C-alpha cells in the first residue's frame, strides 16, 4: 500500500547509476556579458573549476534550499579567496548574496539557505587574491506545494 515516494526512487536510481543526488555544474558556460557577472568581474574572464557549488537536485520548497559553496584555496596570507558572488537565473533579485572572506578565513566554505523562485540555475563566482575568477553552477528543480495553503 505504501509506494516509495519519488524522492527515494530518484535517490535509489541515482545510487544505482552512481549519479550525484546533489546538483553540480551543468556544463553551461558563464556569460561574461551577463550583468550579474560583469558587475563582479568587470570583463575579466571567468574560469570553470576550483569552486564547488552544492544544492539539492530537487527542492521541496523554494522558500528554503540548503546551499554550500566551497573554493579550493590554501587561504594563506598571500593566496586566498576575497569574495564569493552568488547569483540566480530566475529570482526577481538576481544578485543573491556576496560573501567576503580574506586571509583570516582558514577555509573557503560558506553554508546558507537560499530562496529560489522556481526551477533554475544558481551560479557562484569566486574572486581570488591574484585577481582571477572561478565559477561553478548548479541546477535545481523547485517543486510547488500540492495544496494551496491560504490559511
Amino acid at each position, binding site marked *: 500500500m505504501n509506494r516509495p515516494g519519488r524522492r527515494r526512487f530518484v535517490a535509489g536510481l541515482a545510487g544505482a547509476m552512481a549519479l550525484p543526488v546533489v546538483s553540480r555544474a551543468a556544463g553551461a558556460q558563464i556569460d561574461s556579458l551577463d550583468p550579474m557577472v560583469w558587475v563582479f568581474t568587470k570583463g575579466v574572464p571567468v574560469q570553470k573549476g576550483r569552486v564547488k557549488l552544492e544544492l539539492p537536485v530537487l527542492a521541496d520548497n523554494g522558500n528554503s*534550499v540548503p546551499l554550500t559553496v566551497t573554493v579550493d584555496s590554501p587561504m594563506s596570507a598571500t593566496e586566498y579567496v576575497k569574495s564569493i558572488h552568488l547569483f*540566480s537565473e530566475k529570482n526577481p*533579485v538576481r544578485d543573491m548574496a556576496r*560573501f*567576503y572572506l580574506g586571509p583570516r578565513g582558514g577555509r*573557503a566554505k*560558506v553554508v*546558507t539557505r537560499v530562496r*529560489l523562485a522556481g526551477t533554475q540555475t544558481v551560479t557562484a563566482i569566486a574572486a581570488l587574491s591574484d585577481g582571477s575568477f572561478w565559477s561553478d553552477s548548479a541546477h535545481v528543480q523547485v517543486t510547488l506545494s500540492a495544496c494551496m495553503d491560504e490559511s
Partner: protein
Amino acid sequence: MSARIRIVPARAKRGEVVEVSILIQHDMETGYRRDDEGRVIPRDCINLLTCRYNGVEVFRADLSSGISANPYLQFYTVAQATGELEFSWIDDLSVQGSARASIAVSE
C-alpha cells in the same frame, strides 16, 4: 532579534580553523507578498552582516531577499586569540541587530 551562534570548537588551539555558525530570527520579507487586504508587504531583509573577531572583521556578507527567512550562515575563521566574535547586522528598515559569542584559544 533573537540569534544563536555556534563555534566549533569553542576552545581551540591558535592557528586552528574553527567553524562559525549563526541563525538569526528575521522574516527576510521579500516585498513580493501581499497581506489579506491585498496590500504589498514592504521589503525588509537583512542586507549586511559583519563578523568581527576581537574587533577585526573576519567575515562580511551582503544579503538579499534571495536568502531564506531566519537566515542561517556558516563560515570559517582561524583561531587567533581568546576573545569574542561579534556579529552585527542591519536590515532594509535600518533596524540593527547584534549577537556575540566567546572563543577560548590556547597556544
